[in-house]
């Protein structure tokens, strides 16, 4: 389960006035241990920032801040003058990375936090330099990940609904505009899009058209999309079949994890969701067309 806690803890390794410098090897140990457990850490020292502050603005955006330092056994009491951030201090003396991590974990107590290894931040990221607002992703995704904003622009609306390791929507995007940064290969992972990638996408759309009728090829002309994609000529059974076939093909190509397919909603539910998504996409496209977008 994803934690929506804004910022569990901001950790500062303070090496300014009143604190001794931490040897580089131990500094690396401390940073590695904390980062690998999911904590953000800042190394701060006097004169580090343009305004003369010892701490960057980033730090005070956190609700709770833990300032660590080699204070000679006597950690100072610190307060946020703005009263916004609760600051606590700890003397780390000569503690190693694991011991410092233990100290921070104890400080965090039972506040929720996304754990590396237990959860992966997997969700689509839209490259709006490439996106043409064709709504293909919205009409393809069965899990309500996509929606539109007030200007009828496609957006990722429900990150948490996205199925981990499933980049299927990026595979049906004709403009290669959908990224999954945690994916291994390009251009889905955010690598620059090459001409070769674009050619491959064109072929992919053709394959999809073969699988599912004319849906994807017709989608490429945005002005025609609203008229053709949801036309009454396409039966609801056919739309359902298209998705199934496309999903199975993408799975065969290693693009969709088996467990995603195994956990697809019932055919009736898919039917209902597909119709809802199509209606949303149609309405957004019609509104955008009407508004000259």
């Amino acid at each position: 389960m994803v934690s929506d806690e804004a910022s569990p803890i901001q950790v500062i390794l303070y090496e300014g006035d009143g604190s001794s410098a931490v040897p580089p090897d131990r500094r690396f140990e401390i940073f590695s241990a904390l980062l690998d457990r999911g904590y953000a850490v800042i190394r701060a020292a006097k004169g580090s920032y343009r305004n003369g502050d010892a701490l960057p603005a980033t730090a005070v955006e956190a609700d709770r801040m833990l300032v660590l330092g080699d204070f000679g056994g006597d950690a100072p009491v610190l307060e946020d003058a703005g009263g916004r951030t609760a600051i606590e201090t700890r003397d780390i003396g000569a503690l190693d990375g694991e011991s410092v991590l233990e100290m921070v974990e104890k400080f965090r107590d039972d506040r929720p936090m996304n754990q590396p290894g237990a959860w992966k931040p997997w969700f689509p990221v839209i490259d709006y330099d490439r996106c043409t607002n064709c709504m293909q992703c919205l009409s393809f995704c069965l899990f309500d990940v996509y929606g539109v904003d007030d200007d009828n622009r496609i957006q990722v609306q429900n990150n948490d609904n996205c199925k981990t390791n499933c980049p299927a929507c990026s595979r049906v995007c004709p403009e290669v505009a959908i990224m999954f940064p945690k994916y291994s290969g390009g251009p889905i992972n955010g690598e620059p899009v090459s001409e070769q990638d674009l050619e491959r996408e064109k072929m992919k759309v053709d394959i999809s058209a073969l699988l599912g009728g004319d849906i994807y090829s017709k989608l490429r002309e945005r002005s025609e999309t609203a008229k053709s994609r949801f036309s009454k000529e396409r039966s609801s059974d056919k739309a359902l079949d298209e998705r199934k076939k496309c999903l199975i093909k993408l799975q065969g190509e290693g693009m969709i994890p088996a467990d995603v397919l195994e956990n697809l909603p019932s055919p009736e539910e898919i039917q209902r969701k597909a119709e809802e998504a199509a209606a949303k996409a149609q309405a957004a496209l019609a509104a955008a067309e009407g508004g000259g977008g």
Partner: protein
Amino acid sequence: MPEESQSPKILYCRCAYAQVVPGDVKDGVLKSLCDSGVAFETVSDLCEMSARQDPRLKSIAEGGPVKIAACHPRAVKWLFHSAGVPLPEGDAVEILNMREESATGITGKLFNRELSQ
């Protein structure tokens, strides 16, 4: 290396929630930062922060010139956008790609005071 108040801020992303950045590169860059004596900021994972729309991303995006050692620049740019805090256009941000470049190459650019696109 002396601390410079006018140098671009340095932000390092550990990519801790998935193993897509080579371990030797991200360790090498972090080691160089720790050895250097400069002030720097690190985050466990920009993707995780973007997913939560962490308010600290706003400070990073709006906090002046910054060098970000992370992932593919296209992904990083739109991750910030996705969190509702677009990175500034122009020459205030340099994104260094630890998925593609060597640790030596990345650190050389991080410690160069000039920002390049």
